[in-house]
């Protein structure tokens, strides 16, 4: 991913409605995103485009993701430790 695209994604991951999502998505981008396959990166971009109140229940486990590839990314997001 080129610098511009990555910066755009970074902005959309770290300027969100909820602090929780800023922290988790920002950390994910730093730690996990570089190793994703192109298909996984695309699935992450779809999740990052969701609104926080759609994405947060998936991450905190109160709702489940139907798409298998997105579910894989959600599982990785659940593993992110901000601390």
């Amino acid at each position, binding site marked *: 991913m080129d610098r511009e695209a990555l*910066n755009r994604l970074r902005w959309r991951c770290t*300027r969100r*409605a909820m*602090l929780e999502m800023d922290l988790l998505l920002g950390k994910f981008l730093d730690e996990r995103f570089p190793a994703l396959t192109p298909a996984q990166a695309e699935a992450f971009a779809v999740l990052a485009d969701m609104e926080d109140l759609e994405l947060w229940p998936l991450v905190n486990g*109160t709702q489940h993701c139907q798409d298998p590839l997105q579910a894989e990314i959600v599982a990785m997001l659940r593993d992110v430790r901000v*601390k």
Partner: protein
Amino acid sequence: MSNVNIPVRKFDAVIVGAGGAGLRAAIQLSEAGLKTAVLSKVFPTRSHTVAAQGGVSASLGNSEQDHWHWHMYDTVKGSDWLGDQDAIEYMCRKAPEVVVELEHFGMPFDRTDEGKIYQRPFGGHMSNFGEKPVRRACAAADRTGHAMLHALYQRNVRANTQFFVEWMALDLIRDAEGQVLGVIALEMETGEIVAFHAKATVFATGGAGRIFHSSTNAFINTGDGLGMAARAGIPLEDMEFWQFHPTGVAGAGVLITEGVRGEGGILRNSSNERFMERYAPNAKDLASRDVVSRAMVTEINEGRGCGPNKDFVLLDITHLDPATIMKRLPGIREISIQFAGIDPIKAPIPVVPTCHYQMGGIPTNYHGEVLDANGQVVKGFYAAGECACASVHGANRLGTNSLLDLLVFGKASGDSVVDALRKDAVAHKDLPANFADRTLARINRLNTQTGGANVNDTRLAMQRTMQNHCGVFRFKDKLEEGVRKILEIEKEVARTEIKDKSQVWNTARVEALELDNLIEVAKATMISAEARKESRGAHVRDDAPDTPENPNGRDDKNWHKHTLWQRDGNKLSYKPVTMTPLSVETIALKTRSY
């Protein structure tokens, strides 16, 4: 680049910020047929209004008898008598109207069996002037702010409001007479700098909670409107008043709900002592927010904090049955694991008092018109929501009045613009020749700075200074030292350096520009707090304790007045609190107790 190269776009009105206040103002303007631009750093429904879950208050009386005058009383009392009573009466009287309007815009409020808007009780909401609790909060499950933003956004789409998404406003444009003529803004996607030339400019940029190290605010809340106003010579009012929540995860700031203590959670210090027994022998860990926050800070200040830096205390639920934790406190385990690295079933959660809401802001009257340091209306300039200070929250905000504030004053500011433009149906005033000089100088400095300060390190130094010297419980010596430190950090902000000098999607530049705004708010807060030698509402000083002469440390004789901080020379001045409501009698000063 010089002024002559800057593209100029003309609108009747430009609104900066697309949260609840900005969207509500935009509806008034667009539906009145004005050509309206709304600038936002993010897509509107990603604004921080989403995080307001509790509800919006209005004396609809759907569940039991209620009255706007009782709501007004609760708000004045909540403000510790620092709120302006004309603005508070206006807001509480308008509340039923703006809530019903929102319902008509499609807001999916919870309903009673009869189909009316369901109302629930909320802390501080009382009937008959403080007599007993009343159900006044209207909500859409636990997603009130989210639902509100969607309803307002859809209405704007219908009204043809023009949105400029992922644009950051950089500075106000004022002419020699002080009239505001629009803003200069940066489009992130292209790096282009554009002037938005407008007959009216409305700021609805939200709060600046990111000045503190521990904050529940999303990263977007960098006080851009306050920074721009301060640089343009507009004062900031009552910036010493910030609402804190006792239990944010240390380091991250993510909120741990009060329900954790309700279910038996215990606060402990480094000696594993249940310290709240000393501060509140009866209520213990369930004492009020301010009592708990102060006790936590006292423990940390006296060396009984936990961790390598002894800078947090512990919230312990390890004695609770794991099944109870999973059933009664859903999500708390996940939050603790993800944001504190702690499984609360096995170990206690590190917590600190955490900044939540900004009571002060850009001074306005209850029409949403911005006021200068002399109390005169600044022509062409309006503000609403958390960035503005009407002042309805005074020294502390009543729960659910934040969403009400943005609806009422978003609408009021929009109406004021419509009235002004109808009365004064003239062409755009010419832009001054040098309108972008200061902004371009800031950008050019960032582009050429070498050997400068790192943006992240400087922001962190500011946040730690604010947290340690100007947090929920304040001390004379620490405030004085805090003023010195924050003025030193300001010098670093003036020499920040970014490695990436590119034009397109340069987020490093945007973050440096955000820091330019944060530091203005940090200075205003620290300097205003150091100067106010009393305790009132959310501003609590160790050297202004509860005495018979000054109950709760409040000193009405000397300090019943609003602070105005001005950037030029860090000058402080004061103005009286408006004690005369619009139609009812003054709610006279008395000691605030719950």
